[in-house]
């Protein structure tokens, strides 16, 4: 796999979509996970979801019968991308700890 660097928003969306969620659900989940630090805006999220679908990292599911809300879920490819990103982040943390002498 090429050297891909994910944005923070995309990484958190991939993590969140281990459970099927719809748009607003993703926004809430990401905000919760990051303790309010990462707040995805609707327009940004919509673009990210479109791109991630095109790349095959996530897929959409038909919504529940009562609502027309489209739900999304991570795919095997998406999982692989997230795992690779985690490895990259671990590397950054290791080097950062070395140089910056911060625990």
């Amino acid at each position, binding site marked *: 796999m090429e050297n891909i660097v994910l*944005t*923070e*928003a995309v990484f958190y969306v991939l993590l969140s979509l281990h459970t099927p969620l719809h*748009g607003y659900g993703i926004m809430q989940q990401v905000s919760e996970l990051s303790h309010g630090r990462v707040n995805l805006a609707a*327009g*940004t999220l919509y673009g990210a979801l479109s791109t991630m679908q095109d790349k095959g990292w996530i897929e959409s599911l038909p919504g529940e019968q009562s609502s*027309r*809300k489209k739900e999304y879920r991570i795919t095997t490819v998406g999982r692989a991308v997230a795992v690779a990103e985690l490895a990259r982040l671990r590397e950054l943390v290791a080097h950062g700890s070395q140089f910056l002498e911060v625990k």
Partner: protein
Amino acid sequence: MRKIVHKNFFVWQADLEEKWLNEMSAQGWQLLSVALFRYEFEQGDKGEYCYRLELLEDWPTHPNSMEYIRFVEETGAEFIGRVKRWVYFRKRTADGAFELFSDIKSQLTVNMRSVQLLTVLFFVELAYLLPASYMLYTAPHLLLAGVIALNAVLELLMSIGLVKMLAKRSQLKRELAIRE
């Protein structure tokens, strides 16, 4: 109580327009509906709603646009209406912060739409001004001179607007080189 305000904002003044709508909201006037140069307000609580507007990639009736509008509504916002490719949303401030874009990439995407639109309009106007000016030169005519003058002013304004939007694009790109 309701009131109608007639106001003009040029393509490159979208930030100003958004700011104005939120200032009106802070004074208690909540935007109810929009039409070209025409804003209808309704009196409500001060700062009750937060307003955002966006230039869409496609016309609002396009399936992609409709899907996007529905998506934004599902996050708790209300679709107020549209003027050409501009769509207007609002969300109760009590329900939390309301932004449409939370990173630089998406801001850049939207900025590019304005740049594209302005560029097209600039060349369309030029396509009129050049032959019309030549006509004026060969057969001077007061009315034609007046019309050309007005269009020339508009062209000048659009040029300034285009330069502003391009400057914003450069700024965003520089920022993107550093951070998201």
